[in-house]
């Protein structure tokens, strides 16, 4: 997993509340393989970005070429609410996002983001609205997110601190996911397993036929 330390990148304002995981990753993409070169980036917010005929909606903010390299999304409350579909976080990641800033997030979605190296931080709604104003005034402006120091620097150079659990911060800064965390206990797992097998030789194992 890519470590997250200090990110300076174009920030896109998505001034919508309650964007649910079904909007982030429409259901019809849920039965699709995700492979390098064939990822979920296309699916991200598909129905907001494209019309029924598959043409880009010119008025939709993320279709503005100035946001082509946006890595930060500043959006409304409850982003990622709704179904627990884990593909939604993949869609955001594959679209190229590394950080999401909103007044609140769907809880499962937020956990899934961190699992995939995306920082999802909460800021008060009044600040978010101020960021939107700044980003409207200066389209394509950059923001900086300094995770080690838990600070966000707005386009107007205003510095704002944010909260994150020490555990989540540690995982993102070190670029380790839950499997990496577990593998730090690899020896304990091995010895536990060996003891259990010796004590209970009858535990079932299946063969591939």
């Amino acid at each position, binding site marked *: 997993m890519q470590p997250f330390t200090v990110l300076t990148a174009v920030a896109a304002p998505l001034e919508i509340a309650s964007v649910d995981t079904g909007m982030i990753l429409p259901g019809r993409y849920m039965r699709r*393989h995700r492979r390098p070169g064939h990822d979920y980036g296309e699916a991200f917010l598909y129905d907001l970005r494209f019309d029924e005929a598959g043409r880009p909606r010119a008025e939709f903010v993320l279709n503005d070429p100035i946001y082509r390299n946006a890595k930060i999304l500043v959006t409304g409350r409850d982003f990622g609410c709704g179904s627990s579909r884990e593909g939604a976080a993949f869609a955001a990641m594959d679209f190229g996002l590394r950080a999401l800033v909103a007044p609140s997030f769907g809880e499962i979605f937020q956990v899934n983001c961190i699992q995939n190296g995306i920082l999802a931080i909460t800021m008060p709604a009044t600040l978010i609205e101020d960021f939107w104003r700044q980003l409207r005034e200066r389209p394509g402006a950059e923001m900086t997110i300094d995770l080690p120091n838990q600070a966000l620097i707005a386009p107007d150079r205003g510095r704002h601190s944010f909260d994150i659990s020490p555990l989540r911060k540690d995982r993102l800064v070190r670029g380790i996911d*839950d499997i990496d965390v577990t593998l730090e*206990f690899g020896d304990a*797992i091995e010895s536990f397993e060996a003891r259990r097998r010796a004590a209970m030789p009858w535990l079932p194992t*299946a063969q*591939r036929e």
Partner: protein
Amino acid sequence: MTTARTLFEKIWADHVIVVSPQGEALLYVDFNLINEGQSFLAFDQLRIEGRQSRRPQQQLAVTDHYLPTINRARGTAGMANPEIRRVVEMMDENARDFRLPHVGWFHRDQGIAHVIAPELGISQPGMLITCNDSHTATNGACGALAVPIGGGNQLRHVVATQTVWLKKPKTMRIAIDGELPKAVTAKDIILSIIGDIGVGGATGYAVEYAGSAIRALSMEGRLTICNMSIEAGARIGMVGPDDTTYQFLADRRYAPKGADWDQALAYWRTLPTDAEAAFDRELSFDAARLAPMVSWGTSPEDSAPIDGAVPDPSRIDDADRRRHVERALDYMQLRPVTPLADVAIDRVFIGSCTNSRIEDLRAAALVLKGRRAVVPGMVSPGSSAVKRQAEAEGLDRIFIDAGLEWRDSGCSMCNGSNGELVAPGERCASTTNRNYEGRQGRGALTHIMSPAMVAAAAVFGRLADVRLLS
């Protein structure tokens, strides 16, 4: 002298490898079941990361949600819907690429994961079992700690490490004592419990079902009860192992044999909850007061005895509950105070991980023998082994002679992943576990009940009291 412990606490403690500073435990997974559902996300990510399955022989992939229960001769080539076919193919590919044992299309054991794991003797007392399916607690009926996991990240973690991080739940004992009245089954017990405590009543708890009525149940009945733990909010449901458990397990393919059996049995006998052990919460029900149940609404807690009536929302004080009932009756196209036995149905479904085992099929066949169903319907055995057994007993003839379809095994119409759906506006009497809006198909009107009650509904063409037929 150790302190008294519950069944859950003993199995939990036996599987803890480490505890994190945040209080989550890393637990060893003895066996992991995998269905096709969203599991491809886990395997896609593992592929991208270059990770393999750590212990493939402690996993079993089971294709159950997306298989058709009819017209199987041509395999995937015969599947009309390309998206459904693709999910089935992806499980084949993932099982192959990750070297996982796989019960697929034409395997002799083919069936629903939570039916075949106990049937093969995989689910044993004292084990920790995971599966990317919310009804995993079914396996807890065998005295195991069986936990549902997410189909993406959590499954990926179990496949790669054979461990799972879990927060320790609180414990709850639900005791059902006394003798069940005639025609009252395991399904009626669990629907009564859920109706009483609600769909969130056991959230955050590991539930142990106990009491003389549970002791008297067969393994099939216990599997039905544990199956619907999640409909009461509990991810974990279990029954302490006893002679019924041991007799059920003996000689099954994956059960211990010879000296291993003796050693295992000695261990299993140490597992039941100690007499002095304390639970965080205790509930008790009187079996003698239970009756055959049907659901009338859009949540498993919306259930009532068949001789009852549709509730009147205007007489419900709690505003949230009143709004729910109003919406449920609107969706279900039911009028307040209608007697439940007056509700006409359009079709029946007998199947699912809740009620598709041999005892369930026998109970339904007993009602249907020599009778005709006046509505269409289908019967889907829980596994190919159940199907073979039912055919050996002539149950298939009873269903077919009654006018019902005798299908192959799979999750089928329980949630319609495979495209076998109840039509919009159609009312279905079903042995399944969920009656949420759209569960069996968009606009489908589901009433859940026991297999015998579904059979009675088929005979009368309406919700009916099976006691009238016996």
